[in-house]
């Protein structure tokens, strides 16, 4: 039965769904990269993703307009990002703990709203696959890369965009300065906290989209704990990727491929208990962290609130 895995159809299927499933990781982890580069660790990504997933789904479901759904997810994400900034930047809370609070709040709140407004699991017709002319007709490659929906394409487009913003723009320079040496940045007139507010809100928006990409583009349902740990893995992917968009891309792809493989193992009835199969990405995360952190150093001020010297 293991040999079932090695037919062309299955392999292409795994690669195509792996390419697709990297989407939520990419949004969430790229958003978190901005935050961490500026020195803010937002551990509550999972909770924001859940709220975004619900908002996106509910608005799409009731208005029949996916764009409004996406906008709702972004708005909810922005509000949560602002909340995270207030807690972590202004109130200088211990970021490892406040993130757990944001997670629990998002987990409970998204479920509560879901039960109040809908109650039963419904489906929406999510973003449809866009067949890119010519390219999508290519054998194998076409099916894997060029028959995906819009949110998938945008997620991949964000990788070079994030790289450009972080490394080639004035704003990116400020983000890195604030994350590496907030005192120096401050003395040069950069408002440390303003930059951190902006990156937190940006991270929130992208986490919201990450959630919506699940609920209105990939899975097209909402249910309790839809994200099941993806947000936490996204935070780990930022470390794994060495705080670089390209590294995040590689990490996201590895993870989503493992996930896709795990799903197909279940589909093909290969006798590995599903609970054990689900465990694999987490084990892999720990191993990946061991390998990754030996190479790069985190932003110096990561997790440290800025205190102007008196």
């Amino acid at each position, binding site marked *: 039965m293991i040999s079932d895995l090695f037919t062309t159809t299955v392999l292409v299927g795994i690669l195509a769904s792996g390419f697709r499933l990297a989407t939520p990781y990419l949004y969430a982890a790229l958003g978190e990269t901005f935050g961490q580069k500026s020195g803010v660790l937002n551990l509550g990504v999972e909770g924001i993703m859940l709220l975004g997933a619900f908002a996106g789904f509910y608005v799409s479901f009731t208005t029949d307009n996916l764009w409004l759904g996406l906008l709702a997810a972004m708005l909810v994400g922005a509000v949560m990002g602002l909340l995270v900034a207030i807690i972590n930047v202004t109130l200088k*809370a211990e970021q490892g*703990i406040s993130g757990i*609070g944001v997670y629990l709040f998002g987990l409970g709140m998204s479920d509560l709203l879901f039960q109040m407004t809908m109650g039963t699991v419904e489906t929406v017709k999510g973003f449809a696959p866009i067949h890119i002319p010519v390219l999508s007709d290519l054998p194998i490659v076409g099916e894997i890369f060029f028959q995906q929906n819009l949110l998938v394409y945008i997620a991949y487009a964000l990788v070079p965009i994030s790289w450009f913003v972080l490394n080639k723009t004035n704003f990116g320079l400020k983000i890195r300065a604030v994350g590496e040496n907030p005192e120096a940045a401050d003395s040069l007139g950069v408002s440390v906290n303003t930059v951190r507010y902006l990156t937190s809100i940006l991270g929130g928006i992208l986490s919201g989209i990450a959630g919506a990409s699940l609920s209105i583009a990939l899975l097209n349902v909402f249910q309790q704990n839809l994200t099941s740990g993806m947000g936490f893995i996204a935070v780990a992917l930022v470390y794994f990727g060495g705080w670089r968009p390209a590294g995040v891309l590689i990490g996201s792809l590895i993870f989503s491929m493992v996930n896709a493989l795990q799903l197909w193992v279940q589909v093909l009835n290969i006798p590995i208990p599903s609970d054990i199969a689900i465990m694999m990405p987490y084990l892999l995360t*720990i191993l990946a962290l061991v390998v990754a952190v030996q190479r790069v150093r985190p932003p110096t001020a990561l997790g440290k*609130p800025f205190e102007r010297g008196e």
Partner: protein
Amino acid sequence: MQSLFNKYPKLWRIFDILLPFFATLAALAVGAVMLIFLGANPFEAYGALLEGAFGNINALADTLVKATPLLLVALGICIAFRGGVLNIGGEGQLVVGALASTLIGLSFADAPGTLIIPLALLSGFLAGAIWGAIPGLLKAYFNVNEILSTIMMNAIAVQGMNYLLREPMIDPVQLESASRIPQTARLAVAFDLPRLIPTRLHLGFGLAILAAILVYIFLWRTVIGYRIRAVGLNAFASRYAGIKVSRYIVLSMLLSGAFAGLAGAIQVYGLHHRMFTDGSATGFTGSAGFNGIVVALFGHLHPLGSIPASILFGALIVGANKLQRVMQVPTAFITALNGLVVIFVVSSEYWRRRWARRRETEPVEKPPGATEAEVAT
């Protein structure tokens, strides 16, 4: 305000202690707004909460029962925090502790309780220690962020639990029935922890109090405890003083996990008498692994301060469950409220730090969560 506090320095101390209460009240106030949206009367709801927590002897006993795992987890958090590491892995450590102890009870069903109970509690303690030591080792020797690794360890423990309870450890009765509820058989009645009074209150609470005293003595009256605190306060200085920092980081995490594991074992032997899962960690732990962190913060990261903090938080949980039953509010509300309490309590530390800085005459203790740089300023 300022002059008032200067005149009565003791007021600071009282405000320090009351701060988390205010934070919790603020969280409950936000919860009240949510309740109004849910169509429930918040006064009625919080009345039900209070009555559920303290209304009668049974409610009071339940509060202490709920406080037990919280206190044990909090003790571990105190050790970790004092050692300069953040243990977010209480959930997973609690789960593996419960699993290990259940395994002992199921394997030796005919053995006498006097032998099995200590053995089971010890196995829970050890399993939690191993689960905590792994992130500790990764942190000390591979520089892996312990926040991330403990979160992953939580997920691994939960999946392991789901697998074990669905397949090898499942109750044979469930195996026959169509529903196949993922839980083990009930442990032998001989293994039940003794009850303290004719309520659900069991010996576990007494053990947790005893553990709190022992942890206090350990941290402040032994050399090893002193070194753990030294590493937490200033790892660099400790290294120059000849303390093997890596080793003490591992030890802090190991002990932190061990107390969470013990909490898991006590939950099984004192309360549930079996292990069960609803697929998530919360189903079994009730988020005690996370809430223990808040309890520790509440108690000023002090083992003895954690005792009243755990009772208060236990009351909140028991009361919230009552609220949910009486007012027909979904359980999800409790989870969200729980998150709000975590956010508010951890954010309120801001004021404690500010006040601490203003008190020039008293020595400034390292506030929880502050970095070395902050204490130095």
